[in-house]
């Protein structure tokens, strides 16, 4: 009887040990590699509103009189905004290009993007261009930089209107 109890206790200890091993192992193993070793990450994200789709115009006296008294704003601007066009080149290779529509029910909000781009580490030429007007040639903002990305580096790029536009963090 004692022999049997002893074996049962050993079996219990074995089951507890197995459970503990299961907990210990899967609470941290196997490690997960989201970005391959030796690579770097470029995160491009911004929220920026492009220009309105059309020019504002000054209302005439007749136009103002045709409106309700509380609606008589002298300047009439369209609500909708243009798409923001953006492109990113790494060593002259386009790695991201998009025409970002405005957000909002009336297409009057900012254009938004959030991109994670896994790239090889090392020395690169990075070019970013952005158009937020109705121009058909050239860019409203253009940034070209020589960068060195170390393995595992995460380069964040935001956009703030004015100056070069693109903010490297």
């Amino acid at each position, binding site marked *: 009887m004692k022999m049997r109890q002893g074996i*049962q206790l050993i*079996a*219990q200890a074995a*089951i*507890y*040990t197995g*459970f*503990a091993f*299961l*907990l*210990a192992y*899967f*609470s*941290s*193993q196997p*490690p*997960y*590699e*989201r*970005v391959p*070793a030796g*690579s*770097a*990450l470029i*995160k491009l*994200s911004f*929220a920026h509103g492009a220009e309105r789709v059309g020019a504002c115009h000054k209302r005439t006296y007749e136009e103002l009189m045709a409106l309700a008294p509380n609606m008589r704003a002298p300047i009439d601007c369209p609500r909708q905004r243009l798409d923001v066009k953006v492109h990113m080149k790494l060593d002259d290779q386009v790695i991201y290009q998009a025409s970002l529509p405005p*957000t909002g029910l009336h297409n009057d*909000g*900012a254009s*938004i993007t*959030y991109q*994670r781009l896994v790239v090889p580490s090392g020395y690169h030429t990075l070019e970013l261009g952005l158009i937020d007007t109705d121009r058909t040639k050239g860019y409203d903002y253009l940034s070209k930089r020589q960068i060195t990305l170390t393995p*595992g*580096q*995460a*380069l*964040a790029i*935001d956009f703030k209107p004015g100056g070069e536009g693109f903010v490297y*963090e």
Partner: protein
Amino acid sequence: MHSLKALIRYCLMWVEGWFDWAFGPKWNPTYCLGALGYFYFWIVGVSGLYLYIFMDSGIPASYLSVEYLTHDQWWLGGVMRSLHRYASDAMVIMVALHIIREFAFDRYRGSRWFSWVTGVPMLWLIIIAGITGYWLVWDMLAQYVAIASTELLDWLPIFGEPIARNFLATSHLDGRFFTLLIFLHIAVPLVLLFIMWLHLQRVGHARINPARGLAVGTFAMLLVLSFISPATSQGIADLSRVASPVELDWFYMWVYPLTDIVGPATIWIGSFVGTIVLILIPWIPPIKKKLPAVVSLDNCNGCTRCAVDCPFNAIIMAPRSDGAVFDFEAQVDPDLCTSCGICVGSCPTATPFRRASALVPGIDLQDPSLATLRDEMEKQAAKLTTPGSVMIFGCDRSLKVAKFKSASIATVSLPCTGMLPPSFIDYVISRKLAAGVVVTGCRRGECHYRLGQAWMEERLDGIRDPRLRERVPRERLARFWAAPTDGRTFARDIEQFQRTLIDLDSKATDPEQSEAAQ
């Protein structure tokens, strides 16, 4: 679906058989997965409370406070942190096994739908609580979790700007965000606790604590694990670095690698559809509702035993409505009744000795009624021809007793063994319908209707009403609690029991031989 359930059932019963051998039915962890889940929740709660005392919010205060606990106060703070992590992981395992088990044994349909459905939001809350907890540490794993979670959330058309932008660079971070996270990490488990309470509202005599021996064993296991392999951080978060590779807690974070493979759309649609399916599964396909128990006021004396014994709170005691001298009468809620018949087994008026009037107990099933069972018992007993004959009372959810029927074995199967009033055993032996009686049903602690087996044992042991009368010779009664897979052992035990009965009979008919033998 049936084949899948049968396969899982077979595997579980096989494993549980071994666990029964190692732990005994009382300590068998597979019989109290839900209670273990509650136990781990308390460990997580108490350890979390301790960690909260020392926890700072903000960057890098959050990380530094956890580091202090882990290294400077390793002997208590570090252990508490490890207990917090490992108990959370153990809880996930228990919950997953609990769901699989209830599904395989068909314990989520009919009147049991409420417990199943209230369990579904608990899955979401457990995952959210776990993930927000990892986030608070603000190490590289937290950074990974923060970015992967917000990227996943950004797929939903809820947020104006992507919330992942908050983790674009260190300059975007706001310490107040951690205050919100701490609030979430406390509020979500509190909501979880409320739903855990709700989860058991239709369960009578709910077991929310594992047996003491099991609790001590499992806590000791967690404690030893916390000392041998303490939970540690993975370096302070640095948004200018990629959090890769990371040592994920796969019990909570499997969803992130899966998102990288299948994309956020599949994850969200899969989660949504999965949740809906889980909620609806008790009705897919619709279950044929059995007729509920009915009360016969002419025979009910309002003793309350049926209400006390009902495992699903389907019976209440209401003030007497028929003018009888008793204070109460039993009332059955048909929506909650599982038609297990345990109430019939508890009724003091459920006795087969009644001949002056029809056998109508105070509470009875409609199909099968107690009178039907008595008729069946007598019909089966009449076929017994050989010495050492036995009457086996079994249950529909355990061993199929009918296949053991022979010239020396009569069988009656009940919806649950708990439906059998002990007076039936007295009746069989005193009327010599058979030389002995075998009561069988689900394994100890594993009753399909939760408490039928336990109540039956207590009635036979004379510690629960209605008790088996003293006059019944105990050597002519055998109990065998078994799973459907235990048929071979059962057959062997019956054979042995029959030999014992033959010996008893021969001694009874030849007292001289009996004395000589003594």
